[in-house]
């Protein structure tokens, strides 16, 4: 077990294994997103209430799911880095954070754009929207903190502490924001209270969600590999690799 963790933590091992895994995830991402998009945009039936504006769901929901998952992933990576001192975990965390922020932004943006035809407003202080906005700020904090240190090592550890503190707080924030919303204003329209979706609408959504996850994994593998090269640039195996490469 212990040995396995450390093997997993060896940058070279990770570099090699991810090289083999990466193409599969890229292929899966391309296929799933392509099929999902065409299906969702062109073939799924229009919603009986919202008409065609509901097609935003196929980018909105995958992005929203991913945004929350990535933060959990960030915290797990931080924990692994802090407890077992596995540097690859920190490199992954470093490249995951900006992508998570981008996904959060996509969810927020597509949601606001969707809000105009359905709610008649760009933004309202609904519980879920607000907690998504706060998640975006948490991402900004983690990214800014990592960049603020002169020494990369300290930046990594500080960002890890913040990610772990943040992930403990996310359920608390979510719970309190839910509570706050119900306190103030009767729920006129919430995202959850909708008729459950017909299967023709649901299938493309599932494909898109899976596609987004594949994309995230593939991109994270790719950027982590770059990060490994950058940080290990004077290790023997990297120099050999560079030399072989040309």
């Amino acid at each position, binding site marked *: 077990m212990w040995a396995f963790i450390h093997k997993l933590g060896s940058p070279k091992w990770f570099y090699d294994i991810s090289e083999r895994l990466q193409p599969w995830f890229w292929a899966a991402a391309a296929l799933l997103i392509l099929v999902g998009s065409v299906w969702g945009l062109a073939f799924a039936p229009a919603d009986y209430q919202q008409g065609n504006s509901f097609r935003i769901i196929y980018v909105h929901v995958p992005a929203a799911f991913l945004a929350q998952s990535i933060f959990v992933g960030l915290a797990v990576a931080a924990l692994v880095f802090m407890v077992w001192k596995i540097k690859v975990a920190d490199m992954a965390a470093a490249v995951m954070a900006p992508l998570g922020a981008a996904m959060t932004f996509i969810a927020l943006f597509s949601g606001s754009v969707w809000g105009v035809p359905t709610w008649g407003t760009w933004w309202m202080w609904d519980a879920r929207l607000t907690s998504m906005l706060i998640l975006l700020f948490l991402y900004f904090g983690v990214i800014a903190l990592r960049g603020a240190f002169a*020494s990369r*090592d300290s930046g990594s550890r500080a960002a890890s502490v913040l990610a772990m503190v943040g992930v403990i707080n996310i359920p608390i924030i979510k719970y309190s924001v839910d509570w706050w919303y119900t306190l103030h204003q009767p729920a006129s329209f919430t995202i959850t209270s909708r008729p459950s979706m017909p299967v023709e609408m649901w299938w493309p959504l599932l494909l898109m969600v899976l596609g987004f996850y594949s994309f995230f994994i593939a991109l994270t593998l790719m950027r982590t590999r770059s990060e490994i090269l950058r940080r290990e*640039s*004077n290790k023997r195996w990297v120099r050999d690799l560079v030399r072989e490469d040309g």
Partner: protein
Amino acid sequence: MTFRLEARHLACERDDRWLFADLDIVVGAGEIVRIEGPNGSGKTTLLKILSGQLTDYQGELYWCDSPMRQVRSDFLANLLYMGHAPGVKAALSPLENLAWYQALAGESGSESARMKALAAVGLTGFEDIPAAQLSAGQQRRIALARLELIERPLWVLDEPFTAIDRDGVAELEQRLLAHARRGGSVLVTTHHDLTSLGELRRIRLGRGVVHAGQ
């Protein structure tokens, strides 16, 4: 039990440059060890590693033959560290500054002991003036008073002579010597000549070359 600080195969890299590599150091009771080297050779970095403040190094540290990680709190109870920053609160008087250091060591301490320590570093008459109103050298002398006040076997001192005048330097040298005679040990960096201390163990850092030895 007598004490011993040991570093094996110590190496530290900064920005793709090895400050030192494969360094073996043993500091035992009664020794004064001087770390030498030109500016930027890694003296401060080495002292911070040896005192357990910096953790990005390679190699192993031992305290009394146990790995440092396991006996860190034992080690800290034996260490007195003085860095580039003196650790003196400008708004507090010398006496109040020392009182806090005594308490940190777990002693409640007596005022007369603190007065004696301040007298020993030439601050008689300045005991109750806020440190902000003292000169650069006087502020460092407050920090030096800790050497008198708090009983610790291992002293780690980074440029302790900074800003100290000639008489002060001579007194401090005598203090180091006396500590070693009593069986304590001292790890020190300085650009001053420590002629009055006689032959010292030296560790030279610099330009990638590392010499350790008598």
